[in-house]
């Protein structure tokens, strides 16, 4: 069932890619094919292939409810990480993120806190200080420092 639903999604995606591709018009192209043909052909191919999967889907079961919830929680953490990366700065944002991921993988509270602090500080020192790859300090901290 899931296999079939995803095949439908791919077919819709393929139709969109093909249809949108048809609008890539150029007044003059140096090559006979132009920018349109390749993506449109790929869209068509994807449509046909996913239609085959739609007709003959494999019997694949969804994961258990708890594992899906944990997956969603994990993605939530990553989205938080992405959104807070510049705002809170690398150190704060990473400490919070690592803490929750460690908890998700069954670390105890104290273990997770220590892991979070160690990872964020050591990565910051290795990258920003030693390797000179700049990591954001955070808009809030920057304001405080002036």
């Amino acid at each position, binding site marked *: 069932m*899931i296999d079939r639903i995803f095949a439908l999604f791919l077919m819709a995606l393929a139709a969109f890619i093909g249809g949108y591709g048809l609008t890539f018009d150029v007044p003059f192209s140096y090559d006979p094919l132009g920018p349109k043909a390749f*993506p449109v052909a*790929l869209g068509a191919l994807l449509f046909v*292939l996913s239609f085959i999967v739609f007709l003959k889907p494999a019997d694949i079961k969804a994961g258990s409810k708890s594992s899906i919830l*944990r997956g969603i929680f994990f993605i939530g953490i990553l*989205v938080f990480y992405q959104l807070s990366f510049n705002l809170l700065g690398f150190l704060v944002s990473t400490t919070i993120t690592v803490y929750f991921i*460690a908890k998700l993988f069954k670390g105890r509270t104290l*273990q997770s806190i220590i892991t979070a602090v160690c990872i964020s500080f050591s990565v910051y020192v290795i990258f920003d200080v030693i390797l000179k790859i700049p990591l954001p300090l955070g808009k809030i901290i920057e304001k405080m420092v002036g």
Partner: protein
Amino acid sequence: MEVLSLLYNGFTVALTAMNLGLALLGALLGTLFGALPGLGPINGVALLLPIAYTIGLPPESSLILLAGIYYGAEYGGRISSILLNVPGDAGAVFTTLEGFPLSQKGLGGPALALSGLSSFIGSTLAVVGLTFFGPLMSKFAISFGPPEYFVLMVFAFSTITVLMGKRPVKSLISVVIGLILAVVGVDSTTGVLRYTFNEPELYDGFEFLTVVVGFFAVSEVLLMLEHYNSDTFHLPKIERVYISLKEFLMCKWAILRSAVIGFVIGVLPGTGASIASAVSYTLEKKLSDKEGTFGNGDYRGLAAPESANNASAGGALVPMLTLGIPGSGTTAVLLGALMLYNINPGPMLFTEQPKLVWGLIASMYIGNIMLLVINLPLVKVFTKILQIPYWILVPSVVVLAFVGVYSVNLSTYSLMIAIILGVLGYILRKLNYSMAPIILGFVLGEIMEDNLRRALSMSGGEFGIFFEGRINIVLWILVAAMLFMPIIIKIIKKKYFKS
């Protein structure tokens, strides 16, 4: 001989203090990434590539490090296969079949020693193969024009489709998804914006590392969430890591045969360690399993897949360095690394970048000796690393992946794309779509379209140009042979079992 003097020059590059250090670092990290279940060579290379690039390592040093991780991982993968019955990476699945029974019998030490030696022999023979076949192949490939290149890619994708994954349709869908992802951005010949949705960050297309980290690292953690259990492993005690000469000599043909098989399968586009080890184990079982010892801890059945998966890593570098077509998923990432450095992969690489190519090849001879030392006397250190709990391992990987993606162009926009692709990758993997074809499609997409359009400009729009000339005809025959291979194998199997 010309090759030997070029190789000598390569050694002058590889033997500088920095490059020696990087080869050692690559060997250590590779063994580590291979040993840890879930983290294979692709993740290792993807995590280290942005660091190597942003701290400004020259391309040859970068490649020495990253390739070290690649072939090092094929050594490391065996450790948890043998001791815990958990393959460290995809290439080590068949190592569990004989390796784990051996360790249960208390022969974990000899099993680690034999598989380490087989890895070394397989890997080194493949580097010798690369040294001599590489230049030949690149000389041959110089005569390729745009039409030949396009057909060559059709061949590459047909081998991927037929040989990878359980269902060819799904592998081909993966390829097409990769190709579509590569279309996004400004069209280089006409300047038209394709699928950018007025988002300036997409004008240059998807950043290569973002795609790799999303599809591999992020989706891998999502899979780990399902599989892992929090119980700590019970590691069997290993007394001494050794193998007797008699037992080693019993395996010599298994090792040599598998090295050749692994190398050839590695050379084929898109097929890497997992297929090489599967084929070599199956063959060895057919040839040597006279007393029914396979499955209960047979040394030959352990040596074969380990020799083959290491040889495939060297083999996969041949088409990558000579044709610009990766022989495996990880070499697709290495190819992406070259492109990050604005180096155009292709047949000219051997003549235009001799320092890079020969420095890399020379470093692989050295790296394999380092790996032999790491994986025989020092292997016990790595068995300790298997006990790192997931609550330290997983967040470290996530943070390194994010920092890597962020550091390439100091933007958090790519982080969001990596998350989205990670979710997509997770769904695809759950539904048995393979990931490596996506990366291959993504890396080759632009070159494929470019060659298609250039070929048609040459012919004034006539598609006949793809069927002209000897090389094209041979390539089309290979495509046809590849597509009919499943049927041919079926017929052979039927006959074989009837007689």
